[in-house]
């Protein structure tokens, strides 16, 4: 429920206040691409028209590469250390699709064994959502049960209503962030009405739609339809763009490095699109491209629902608009043998 608001010109001040207590991560524009990065009092007026980051915010918890263990060869043996990363951070400006994605991979990293590296960053992070009223033509979040202006997966939810942001307080942690600031005002009835209009208009702007109901069942039934998978995978070039830039893809690799006496064990993103991903010395269960493409689709829409009861796609559209060959997952879902309809954003 919307309760508070803040004038846009006070936003930098608010971020500045937070920045004294912890690190504030905001969308940052560099060489034409927008990434989540530490805020250094830079101008953030582009948030008015910016759409989404190229690299999804998952990178704040599962960086492209990170040190797991560092080691040092000493005369009396090896000195092994785990880096301590417990600093508090606030991620400001996360979109509802990406916030949902974070909620989805939270489950993976907490499942059975707690993942120290992910959890230590995640539990020290507050997410501040920013509603989205300017979707790309590749976005289809409303088809994946995400509302571009609402989110329960964040601590605070901001919504742009013109000169002001109205704020929903979702968690107590989020609420506490607002308590100390005099810039936060109570939202009026008029603000709430304005927000309603913005909400309706924003949802309306999402033209690309795909019916994701029953997709898991359909995937089950066509899992062994090799002709279909060969046909849809034909143009895929097996690069890592769709997986690396997917906000719910979490696969990683672990590798060691040692230079002279110093070394570290790193983990970094890996991709099921790569042939080397499953390669064993004697054989490779996913040697063929169609198997790798099938894995990606089925992981998102079949295996995930089976294991955790939710589709691992939030409709952010990155995999479509950044794909070198315009491989469009909505077309693949819609084209599954059996009838599911798709409306393109044209």
């Amino acid at each position, binding site marked *: 429920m919307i309760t508070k608001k803040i004038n846009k010109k006070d936003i930098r001040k608010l971020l500045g206040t937070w920045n004294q207590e912890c690190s504030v991560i905001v969308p940052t524009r560099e060489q034409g691409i927008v990434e989540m990065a530490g805020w250094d009092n830079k101008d953030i007026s582009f948030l008015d028209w910016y759409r989404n980051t190229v690299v999804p915010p998952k990178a704040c918890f599962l960086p492209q590469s990170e040190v*797991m*263990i560092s*080691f040092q060869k000493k005369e009396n*043996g*090896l000195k*092994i250390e*785990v880096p*301590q990363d*417990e600093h508090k951070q606030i991620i400001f400006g996360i979109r509802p699709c990406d916030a949902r994605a974070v909620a989805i991979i939270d489950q*993976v*990293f907490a*499942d*059975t*064994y*707690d*993942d*120290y*590296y992910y*959890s*230590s960053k995640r539990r020290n992070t507050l997410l501040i959502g920013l509603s989205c009223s300017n979707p790309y033509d590749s976005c289809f979040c409303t088809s994946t049960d995400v509302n571009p202006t609402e989110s329960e997966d964040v601590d605070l939810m901001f919504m742009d209503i013109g000169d002001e942001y109205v704020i929903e307080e979702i968690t107590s942690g989020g609420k506490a962030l607002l308590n100390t600031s005099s810039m936060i005002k109570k939202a009026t009835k008029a603000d709430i009405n304005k927000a309603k209009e913005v909400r309706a208009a924003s949802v309306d702007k999402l033209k690309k739609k795909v019916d994701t109901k029953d997709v898991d069942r359909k995937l*089950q039934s066509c*899992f062994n339809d090799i002709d279909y998978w060969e046909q849809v995978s034909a143009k895929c070039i097996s690069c890592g763009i769709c997986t690396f830039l997917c906000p719910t893809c*979490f*696969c*990683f*690799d*672990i*590798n*060691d*490095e*040692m230079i002279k006496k110093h*070394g570290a*064990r790193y983990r970094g993103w*890996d991709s*099921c699109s790569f042939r080397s*991903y*499953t*390669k*064993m*010395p*004697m*054989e490779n*269960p*996913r040697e063929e491209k169609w*198997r790798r493409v099938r*894995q990606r689709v*089925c*992981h998102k829409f*079949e*295996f995930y629902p*089976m*294991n955790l009861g939710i589709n691992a796609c939030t409709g952010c559209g990155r995999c479509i608009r950044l794909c070198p060959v315009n491989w469009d997952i909505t077309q693949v879902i819609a084209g599954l043998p059996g009838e599911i309809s798709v409306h393109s954003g044209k």
Partner: protein
Amino acid sequence: MTITQIKQRKKDLDRENNVYMPHIVLVDKIIEETPSVRTIHFHFKDAKLNNEFTFESGQFAELSIFGVGEATFCISSSPTRKDHLECGINRVGLVTNALHRLGVGAEIGFRGPYGNHFPLDLMCGKNLVFIGGGIGLAPLRSLIWNVLDNRDKYGKIDIIYGARSVSDLCFKYDLDTWEEDKTLNTVITVDKGDGKWRGKEGFVSEVLRDAAPSCGNTIAIVCGPPIMIRSTFPVLEQLGFTPDQVITTLEKRMKCGIGKCGRCNIGNLYVCRDGPVFSYSRIKDFISDEY
């Protein structure tokens, strides 16, 4: 303790409980099994862990050489023999090559045990047929010694083991012991003998067909390269084994060992977390044939 101290203590505990943090083990002994396989015996550097550490036959661990990397190995010693742990290492890649360069006394990383294990409770009171190929004897061996150390709990035991050539036979000292053990029926085969070889020749699946163990009240445990597993299942079916009576352990490329890094999945199952031990009936229900 103040609240800050308590918080700090909790953080430290989290760090200490970090599942990716390996324990240090020391290599006690190295046995060269074949030109490409060696077994290393090791124990924990931390004496307390030597007493506390428990595992079950069929479970695996991540061994690592710091600065080179981690790799997955099943524990090939039996939990009934606690003085040390053993892993069989087939030299195939970066880490296994490095493990082959190690000497006695080396310190390596160990984390685990991970995965499920052979269902000993289900096997209790039954006849057992162990079918192994090549380095696939490693997980099987943990189970065989486990069973032999409680011999009276089980019925008739057959061991059928094969390798490509005589020099590829692993754990020859165990094979000798088992062949001499009158309470077992041990059959060893090689794909092609070397002239001096007096044992059987032929693939494991063929030898199994000839040996024709009875399926009544019996569990078959199969472990070996995928090609052997795939050729063995039909033979067992012909011999009257139902899919529930056949158990195997699968090998996949793994990194984390704990169901997070993603690569070892077969359909919705992760071999590291939901396996590596599966009954054939479960495998038959797999969504995917990617094993």
